[in-house]
């Protein structure tokens, strides 16, 4: 459904050198990215700011022309067949407003029906489905400028889906939303992927989005894909370290036990990192209890946030020679 082969995007920028002189500098935003996404997949696309995520999405949607490489989306070349492609994809930018500012949602949707030339019957059925799914009813007649961020995002998602796209590109759709609104947006993404078979490429900073939704994850850094695989494999590969948090009766020096190291001490509370292969949680607890009097304890499993943060800072074996 989506194929990239050696895709690059470079920008020329002019940097000031002295009063008049400028220096030409070539910035590589995307430096040779290749991957394939099958129809019906829901793939997470993550990476730190400036990694090239948005640039990739803009090339896939026909906004930017790649500097090198080959892109095929739904069998089309995005930058050359932009209008044909636009009919077959949906795009949501979390930070931009696609709906008409002055118009009520209902009128925006009507306008989109004409722009995408959706048959009336089909439009009505879709609209009913999405009004139900995203609970748009109460604010359908409100001008977009008066909607809350969460309401607007629900409107944007509907707008992107009304013409039955095969692929949905979501660029940070949950940014700035509260917990309830986030949950609703996630539910929506999962539903359209499962029930309508829409292929979804989700760019996000919120790894909880990925954890709830995506079976596959692409991690991008400095314009290159540094991880491409399942979420569970990622955890297996990098997420061996679990954490035992103990509350001691009295503050003391870091506890020294075999198979674990103290990562942090805060008064009577200590964090011990350990690996499943080295020592079991029960053995470790017993060893700690032998050295100090325990009041309470908890075990934390590795979370995706930590893993990805580590990959950003340390890289992966794949990315290191």
């Amino acid at each position, binding site marked *: 459904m989506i194929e990239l082969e050696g895709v690059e995007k470079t*920008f020329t920028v002019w940097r000031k050198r002295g009063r008049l002189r400028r220096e030409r500098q070539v910035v590589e935003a995307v430096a040779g990215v290749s991957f394939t996404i099958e129809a019906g997949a829901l793939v997470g696309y993550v990476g730190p*700011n*400036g990694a090239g*995520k*948005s*640039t990739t999405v*803009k090339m896939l*949607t*026909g*906004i*930017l*022309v790649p500097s090198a490489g080959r892109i095929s989306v739904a069998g089309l070349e995005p*930058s050359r067949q*932009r*209008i*044909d492609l*636009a*009919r077959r*994809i949906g*795009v949501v*930018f979390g*930070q*931009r407003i*696609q709906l*008409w500012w*002055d*118009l009520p949602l209902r*009128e925006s949707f*009507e*306008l989109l029906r*004409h*722009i*995408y*030339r959706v048959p009336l019957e089909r439009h009505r059925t879709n609209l009913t489905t999405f009004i139900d799914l995203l609970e748009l009813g109460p604010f359908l007649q409100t001008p977009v400028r008066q909607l809350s961020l969460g309401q607007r995002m629900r409107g944007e998602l509907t707008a992107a889906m009304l013409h039955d796209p095969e692929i949905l590109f979501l660029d940070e759709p949950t940014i700035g939303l509260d917990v309830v609104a986030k949950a609703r947006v996630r539910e929506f993404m999962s539903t359209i992927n499962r029930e309508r078979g829409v292929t979804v490429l989700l760019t996000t900073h919120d790894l909880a989005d990925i954890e709830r939704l995506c079976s596959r994850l692409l991690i991008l850094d400095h314009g290159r894909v540094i991880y491409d695989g399942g979420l569970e494999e990622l955890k297996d590969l990098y997420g061996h370290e679990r954490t035992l948090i103990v509350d001691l009766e009295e503050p003391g020096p870091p506890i020294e036990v075999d198979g674990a190291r103290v990562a942090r001490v805060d008064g009577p509370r200590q964090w011990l990192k350990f690996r499943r292969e080295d020592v079991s949680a029960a053995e470790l607890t017993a060893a700690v209890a032998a050295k100090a009097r325990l009041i309470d304890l908890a075990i934390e499993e590795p979370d995706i946030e930590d893993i990805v943060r580590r990959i950003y800072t340390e890289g992966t074996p794949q990315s290191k020679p």
Partner: protein
Amino acid sequence: MVEAPTILRIYARLIGARIRSQVQYRLSFALNMIGTALISFLDFAAILVIFEQVDALGEWSVAEVAFLYGISSVTFAATDLAIGHIDLLPEMIRKGDFDLVLVRPLGSLFQVVASDFTLRRLGRVGQGLVILVVALTQLEIEWTAGRVGMLAVTVVAGSAIFAGVWIAFSTIAFWLVDSLEVANAFTYGGNFLASYPVNIFGAWLRRLVLFVVPLAFVAYLPSLYILDKKDELGLPRALQFASPLVAVATALAGGLLWRVAVRRYRSAGG
């Protein structure tokens, strides 16, 4: 390509909402319209001031210059009404909102032009028409079918020439982010250049409006035929009928340049 009736329907819907919201406040809308018309009459007053000092401008009487000015104003105002919102392009590019234009299944130029509609710009069309009509009553034109036809063709061709020139210059925004002033120099400056008899210009300005930015074809050259005037520049007579051709060429050049420029679009941010 999307067929023409669909495009027109979408255009009507897009601007319909904008017009409704502008007409909603009737008084302010009426004042706005009158204000726009008044300001443009002041513009014409500048020409009358010149004629207080001289009897003719390069062999053109006040009524003849008013005729030129009228044609130029009407065509300019019509173009402004239809595609004037292309001046929003630099802002759209700077903010990265042009992204949204490119993910919709419609032509990008069309979407930029249809992104807004300012009804008060009708005031300028009115002003141009009034001056044109007054000029026509003062002139003794021998109306033949050819001249009447030429007048109609001139307005249409002139609008297309203005449109092509504006589109061409607006594309600077794809290379330079702060380009509004440059583009404005050619839109509003273009109206000015088209309103005066070309033979009063210096040599390089004459060449510019004849061969580079073909504003001489908006009003001056066809007016020579309509008013049956001797061409002080001694240009081939065929040029007086060339406006439609020049219009097609200019519009095509503008469109082509737009296509090239859009592929240079760099978007904004992350």
